[in-house]
């Protein structure tokens, strides 16, 4: 494989929701961007790529060069690759069965020239099928840090997310943690909280405890996130006062801490750390 995935990889197993689902991936990327780490975002939702719109680069095209496909750069340390860059227009549908989707995922992993990256975030479609099996299988030889599992508080979502965690356990993919999105809705006018999606069975935190995986935090539903996603703006820079921003920063810190801890234990194990010393 020609990929230079330098330090860490985070596979994002995401479940059933609309665009806010991908918001965490892009926000994650944008935060890392602020702290000068090099981040790549790979969108393997072949039939419904949203990352280009959310990142505000929907009209970009992928460039071919001698070293492979160049990802689309949002800034000098944030690069994105998605099937959306290969389509003719926003109405162009990718009507493919599994094998063709797998072929493209393989090509993304083999041919995209990411350069040196600290993190590669992979955004997946909902489900536990071709895309998910393929990505785990193709990356089995690399040091996959694990999966971040997203849910919303209500049981209808948790039913599917339990299946997703089950999937991770079956294929041997570590779960970095669970993030609960759309936990509460804070009305932008009256500041009153309401539970649009009631956690009737304990929500994401209880589910994480049941599966003995870490719970990373809650993100409130803020209509301004959706708006920023639609317009391709960075939420963290546009709406600094939102509770969602702070919650997000904390979640990112936990993920970064997990990844660097994994890395150092890996280095101790392989003796890499001794070489450097």
């Amino acid at each position, binding site marked *: 494989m020609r990929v230079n995935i330098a330090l860490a990889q985070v596979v994002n197993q995401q*479940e*059933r*929701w*609309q*665009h806010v*689902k*991908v918001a965490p991936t892009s926000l994650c990327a944008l935060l890392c961007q602020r702290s000068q780490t090099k981040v790549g975002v790979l969108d393997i939702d*072949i*039939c*419904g790529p*949203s990352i280009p*719109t*959310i990142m505000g680069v929907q009209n970009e095209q992928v460039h071919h060069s001698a070293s492979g496909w160049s990802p689309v750069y949002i800034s000098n340390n944030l690069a994105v690759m998605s099937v959306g860059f290969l389509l003719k227009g*926003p*109405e*162009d*549908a*990718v*009507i*493919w*069965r*599994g*094998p063709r*989707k797998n072929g493209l995922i393989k090509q993304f992993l083999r041919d995209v020239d990411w350069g040196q990256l600290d993190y590669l975030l992979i955004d997946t*479609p*909902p*489900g*536990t*099928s*071709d895309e*998910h*099996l393929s990505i785990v299988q193709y990356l089995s030889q690399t040091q996959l840090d694990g999966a971040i599992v997203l849910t*919303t508080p*209500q*049981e*209808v*979502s948790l*039913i*599917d997310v*339990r*299946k*997703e965690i*089950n*999937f991770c356990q*079956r*294929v041997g993919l570590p779960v970095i943690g669970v993030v609960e999105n759309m936990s509460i809705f804070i009305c932008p006018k009256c500041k009153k909280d*309401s*539970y*649009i*999606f*009631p956690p*009737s069975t304990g929500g994401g935190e209880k589910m994480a405890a049941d599966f003995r995986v870490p719970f990373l935090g809650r993100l409130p539903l803020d*209509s301004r996130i*959706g708006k920023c*996603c*639609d317009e391709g703006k960075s939420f963290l820079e546009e709406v600094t006062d939102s509770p969602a921003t702070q919650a997000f920063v904390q979640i990112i810190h936990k993920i970064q801490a997990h990844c660097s801890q994994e890395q150092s234990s890996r280095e101790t194990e392989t003796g890499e750390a001794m070489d450097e010393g």
Partner: protein
Amino acid sequence: MERLQSVHHVIVILSGKGGVGKSTVAVQLALALRAQGRKVGLLDVDLCGPSIPHMFKLDGQSVHQCPEGWLPVYVDKEQKLGVMSIGFLLENNDDAIIWRGPKKTAMIKQFLSDVHWQNTEYLIIDTPPGTSDEHITVMENLRAFNPDGAILVTTPQAVAVGDVRRELTFCRKTGIPVIGIIENMSGYQVPSLFRCIPIDLQLSQGLEIGKEVSSAPVMDAIQEVAKRLIMLDKDLP
């Protein structure tokens, strides 16, 4: 596939994104059609994330075999609303279906050919998000039965709307008519293409516990969609 011949109308529910409320719309539409005296079937072909059983509080139920085929699980004693989902075939609710395309295709074909719907007037098919194996299989196998068409579900955000444009292309390419678009979670009830369904606390709470809801704005919207579906039927030759 002869068993599908006894079904008068087949409606497919599609959306590009997950979580826009396909299953919610499918369930409410089935209930609304039943309320208007029709016999309704609901087939859930979302194999990796079946939500329909939970929304009807049918978790843990299982499918029975009869000489005519698989019997759907009925929501009511009168057997006016039957449901079929992979959820009824799982031993444990948390079990993940980790299947690639060919296995999913085989399962869906079996659902379409082996379920005994018994003179169902409306069969509503709830699909997973996307335009891949499940959708291609459903469309290919339904073609012979002349399905009424597809209802596309979306939310007001541009990202989800973008996906609906792809879904429209899918319908055109596979030759299935588009009955209409339903905009779900339209916060302030702005009228749109077909009908908007506002975000409603009662509805999401009701679905959580598998109870029927009777919230006015949501029900009005759904009832109107059902009425228009029935009207549509009268217009057809």
